[in-house]
């Protein structure tokens, strides 16, 4: 055993002195697991010769297998195990495997008739980057990931406010992105619906207002003492929720059904139209001047409310339940970003314009990495924030912007 350790130290020392490692290993993500695997194999086998075979049962690209083999051979050599192509009494079969949570490398080390196993678990895989699409280009940038459902998020001068079903989180920006500063419990008195919805709006100052079923919250920020502190007060409320506003027009509010997942259709002030139950609403500028409200009703139809009349909008068959208005400055200046319909595993977003009573797509679909839970416009109106539920119930908030061609 002591001799084995001496050999290992000598080999490692030699390696350090020479400062030599293959170029493959210099930046390889497989370097660490290969070293750990080799150490475990050598611990079973001791110095000597062995035949090495590798099979890949994981999602690792087969193109990576030769590099992994090379790393393993080098590391085994450092531990005194020489890999030989000849038939040998000793054999090592390494399986690149995985389970639902992590990659796992398994070595079956056979010495004569005795086989022992060595296992090395690898760190979880990194996340995939968001996709972008062509045309009037939509671009998504992930600004937050969370294990908890995100109902809404709001970027303020004092940090990011995140509305979850049971609490409000405050995040500050650090070198590695947003990190949690504090959290406040909402303390609802009654259960939220199964498909909960909430909104966050700036209060005109440094604070915010939040609405979710049966509850309203106000948040204020005290800058001193540094780094500042958020104060939140929540109370039971069935007051109407504010809808996204059009420029300097009179703010419109709508009553939300706190036991369901939609607005009741009762809006205030009401210009004479009688909207049905709806999921989402936004304002768009009309060619002749003025603005019209667009609503996504719960039966899947998209309607425009203009001059006190409800008018169906064509070309919205592919729309899901969520949309938000974006003032991109491209094309007519204003578009609606709508979620997709259908039963695909992942949803997409697409931009539309309304030259008449028809939605015309003006961008290619932007594929997201999960199901869109909610969309809402950022306070500046130039971007849209999307909460997405991805694989393994991981939530993320994406900032979606439109780039002019």
């Amino acid at each position, binding site marked *: 055993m002591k001799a084995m350790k001496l050999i290992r130290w000598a080999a490692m020392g030699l390696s350090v002195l020479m400062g030599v490692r293959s170029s493959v290993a210099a930046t390889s993500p497989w370097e660490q697991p290969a070293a750990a695997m080799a150490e475990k194999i050598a611990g079973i086998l001791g110095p000597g010769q062995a035949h090495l075979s590798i099979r890949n049962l994981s999602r690792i690209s087969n193109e990576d297998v030769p590099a992994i083999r090379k790393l393993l051979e080098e590391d085994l050599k450092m531990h005194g195990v020489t890999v030989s192509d000849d038939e040998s009494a000793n054999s090592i079969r390494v399986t690149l*495997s995985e389970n639902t949570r992590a*990659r796992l490398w*398994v070595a079956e080390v056979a010495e004569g008739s005795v086989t022992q*196993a060595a296992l090395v678990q690898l760190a979880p895989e990194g996340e995939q980057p968001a996709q972008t699409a062509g045309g009037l280009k939509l671009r998504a940038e992930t600004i937050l990931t969370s294990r908890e459902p995100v109902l809404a998020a709001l970027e303020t001068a004092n940090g990011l406010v995140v509305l979850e079903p049971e609490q409000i989180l405050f995040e500050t920006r650090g070198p590695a992105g947003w990190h949690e500063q504090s959290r406040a419990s909402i303390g609802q008195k009654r259960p939220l*619906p*199964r498909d909960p919805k909430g909104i966050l709006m700036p209060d005109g100052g440094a604070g915010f207002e939040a609405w979710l079923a049966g509850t309203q919250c106000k948040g204020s920020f005290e800058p001193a003492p540094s780094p500042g502190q958020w104060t939140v007060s929540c109370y039971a409320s069935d007051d109407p929720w504010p809808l996204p506003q059009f420029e300097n027009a009179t703010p419109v509010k709508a009553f939300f059904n706190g036991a369901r997942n939609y607005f009741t259709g009762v809006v205030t002030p009401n210009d004479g139209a009688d909207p049905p139950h709806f999921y989402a609403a936004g304002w768009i500028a009309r060619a002749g001047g003025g603005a019209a409200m667009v609503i996504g009703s719960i*039966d899947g139809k998209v309607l425009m409310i203009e001059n006190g009349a409800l008018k169906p909008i064509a070309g919205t068959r592919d729309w899901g339940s969520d949309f938000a208005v974006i003032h991109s400055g491209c094309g007519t200046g204003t578009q609606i970003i709508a979620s997709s319909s259908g039963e695909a595993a992942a949803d997409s977003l697409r931009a539309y314009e309304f030259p008449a009573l028809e939605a015309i797509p003006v961008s290619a679909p932007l594929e997201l990495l999960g199901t869109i839970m909610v969309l809402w416009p950022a306070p500046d109106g130039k971007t849209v924030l999307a909460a997405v539920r991805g694989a393994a119930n991981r939530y993320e908030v994406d900032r979606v912007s439109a780039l002019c061609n």
Partner: protein
Amino acid sequence: MFRRFAISCFVALLTLPAAARTRPHYGGTLHVEIEGDPWQRPNGIARRLVFDGLTTLDTTGAVQSALASGWESDNADHRWQFRLRPGVYFHDGSLLTSTAVVQSLNLDCPANCPWATVHAVGSMVVFTNDSPMPNLPALLAGDDFLIALTVSADGKTSSGDIGTGPFQVTSFNNGLLVLGANETCWQGRPFADAIEIRVHRAVHDQWLDLSIGRAEMVEVPAEMIRQAQQQRLKVLVSPPAELLALEISDNGALANPMMRAAIAASIDRSALSNVIFQKQGEVTASLLPQSLTGFSFLFPVDRDLNKAHELRGGLTTPTLTLSVDGDGAMRLAAQRIALNLKEAGFNAQEGSDGGAQHADLMLRLIPLEGGEPFAVLEDVSRSVGQTVLLPDSSPTSLYRAERDFLDRHTLIPLVDLPRAYAAGARVRDLALDAHDLPDLASASLEDAP
């Protein structure tokens, strides 16, 4: 003829373009048909609709809070305390209390529990044990430990069907269990107003009812998944949800471990999977599926008749009794195993279910619940009255614990089987939960009002 026509109509409906997808609608009644008992343990379809556990599992199998809002352990996992979620009510309107939870757990688990004592302390439920319980939060998510009201507010014994879940029992008459939406469910009201579960319905009748719109969700046994897919039913198939295994008594004729090892070596798993279960299972010699561990291939699955004879060493046993927990495909599997054993020099005779406790061999399905491999291993071993030693949470420890368990040759894993269901075109957002059961509380009807 009519059935074929009806199924053809259904297939045609499936091919129609889908309407725009909106958020889920509230309302309507979901019609479900099953072959068995909705309250059967484990995993009767009504159980998780009516009852909740202290914890639950998310779709990745990770433990999440449920009736307990949080938990802590101390004394090296010998003691756990679970804080109850405030403001949760049973369907009869009584408040969920720690005393009610303890009463339910004591009723559910009179013996062989993962804990030695459980008691109520204020709003806490406290578990203690002489040995560490590192997996207790995951184990409490299991079907065995769902919380039911045992004593009603007026001090009378409860009917046992009152829980805190998304649906409450409305009636159970003439083979029809009717569940109504729990408006004040702590997880939010379910989308459907009601679920009607027609029980003891033969699978072919279920499929017929699905095809003519009398049912929105029906069962698909593993051995019929391919047939359902060929008929273009909308089938939801889980990952491995149940382990088909042969339990071997270590008493009497099979007290000798070499004889048990010989039985293990003699079984042709591939034939079971390919013929009986129509290639819908995964042959396995490990307790935990490959998807949970990543190393199930370390347990060889191949039949080795020479080794079986060698291990038996010419010894003979009296005729072995083989009991079967189930019918249909399970009985066919038992008959095939008896043939395999005969080729290895054993005589096995299929016995009735009534003799299960005294049988030498018992073919059974063991649920594989959750995504925490250590908890699943503990659960599986507990289900056959055994324990495993897990010193830490490394893959190496897990492998060694599984290897030690299997080296006893008292439980022979054979095939990992999925659970499957077929859903009608009206149902949307129907998915299987972490327990591989349909999450009917989160499903809705396309044409709900």
